[in-house]
């Protein structure tokens, strides 16, 4: 059983403390909405959990059957989708998927690429350059990349940003599946997205 234990996470930027003693614990099947106004530290929390930022104090412990996961194991099990991420502009969607698949240890053939792009509503556009995509299509492709490793831990920052109604439905399906098979953390300040998760954690900044 995979778990995530967040213990007194604190993060400061200069004199300003963004996160102060954040603690919670999640296990497979749990979902958590991190809510709060702009600048309350939602993205900072997700970036720390994704290993992209070091906390000032405290820690996040990823475990499998009481055994602590190392950095490489966490990388294999965790995916993060956020507005500040970008894929390769000069590559097509299929080339991006193939490359990140390889990084995840998966060889993707054309059939699989068609299947994945269909899943996020991008079928028929696999061979378009990423730079030719609209912001919503780019967001969908980021989801496709994030799902390549069947993540146990899925972190979503502003999950429906830039998405149209069809895109929101794709995200709803991804979230529903994640809630059955893994751990989901969603950072949002949209009230209608609070329902994506069963639990809530409010950050006051």
């Amino acid at each position, binding site marked *: 059983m995979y778990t995530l234990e967040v213990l007194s996470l604190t993060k400061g930027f200069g004199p300003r403390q963004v996160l102060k003693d954040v603690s919670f614990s999640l296990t497979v099947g749990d979902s958590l909405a991190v809510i709060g106004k702009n600048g309350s530290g939602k993205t900072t929390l997700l970036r720390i959990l994704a*290993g992209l930022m070091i906390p000032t104090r405290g820690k996040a412990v990823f475990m499998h059957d009481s055994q602590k996961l190392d950095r490489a194991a966490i*990388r294999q099990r965790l995916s993060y989708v956020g507005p500040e991420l970008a*894929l390769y502009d000069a*590559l097509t969607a299929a080339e991006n998927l193939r490359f990140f698949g*390889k990084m*995840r240890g*998966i060889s993707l053939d054309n059939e699989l690429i068609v299947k994945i792009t269909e899943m996020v509503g991008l079928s028929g556009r696999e061979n378009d350059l990423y730079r030719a995509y609209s912001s919503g299509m780019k967001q969908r492709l980021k989801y496709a990349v994030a799902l390549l490793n069947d993540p146990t831990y899925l972190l979503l920052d502003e999950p429906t940003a830039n998405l149209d109604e069809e895109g929101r439905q794709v995200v709803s399906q991804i979230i529903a599946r994640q809630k059955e098979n893994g751990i989901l953390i969603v950072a949002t300040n949209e009230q209608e997205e609070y329902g994506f998760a069963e639990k809530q954690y409010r950050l006051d900044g």
Partner: protein
Amino acid sequence: MPKNSIGLTAKSWAVLRKDIQVEFRSRYALNAILLFGVTTLTVVSFSVGQKNLSGELYAALFWIIIFFSAMSGLAHVFVREEDAKTATVLRLTADTTAVYWGKLGFNFLLLSLLEAVITPLFLMMTDAILHHFFLLLIILFLGAVGLAGATTLIAAIISKASVKGALFAVLSFPILLPLLIGVINGTTKALTATGGVTQASSELQLLTSYAVVMITASLLLFEFVWEE
């Protein structure tokens, strides 16, 4: 998703292949490095083309051209990732060691291409006479490995800084000094009739040791630079 066991070599190759694809579609580093190299070479050839200089001077001029051209392009391998915000996804998905080997391979290829263009042009546009072709080939190869080995880590360090260009040359120069001394001395022996591989054995040992030490140290340090 079906998981295959893709090893470190295949992942490193995938990083290198991706960088080559991105480079050939954008010509970001290639244009900068070749333009700088050819421009500097032209200036040098106008100044010293008709003069008969010693082997030492030709060797020094040749490596000054290679060094500064390299400085104008080698950092792009990481700067591009940070500027385009693709570094974050790479950090989230890729094995750190595979990223290092892929980027090292890319910088090595870029330098080899630069040397392949600049070396024949330099010999044509100046009065330098090449006496030992095979020795020069070894020096060029070891020089490219050493330069790539040292600068790939520095490129990763400076990619997060705001004044990238100046910082890259400033940080690289003291680290590259032993390499530059080695390649200049080695090239001098290739341009001198009395030189040769046997006479340049101390330079070849120095360059080989430098490359091994730099790549090993970079491999050990890269995780800290890349992930923090």
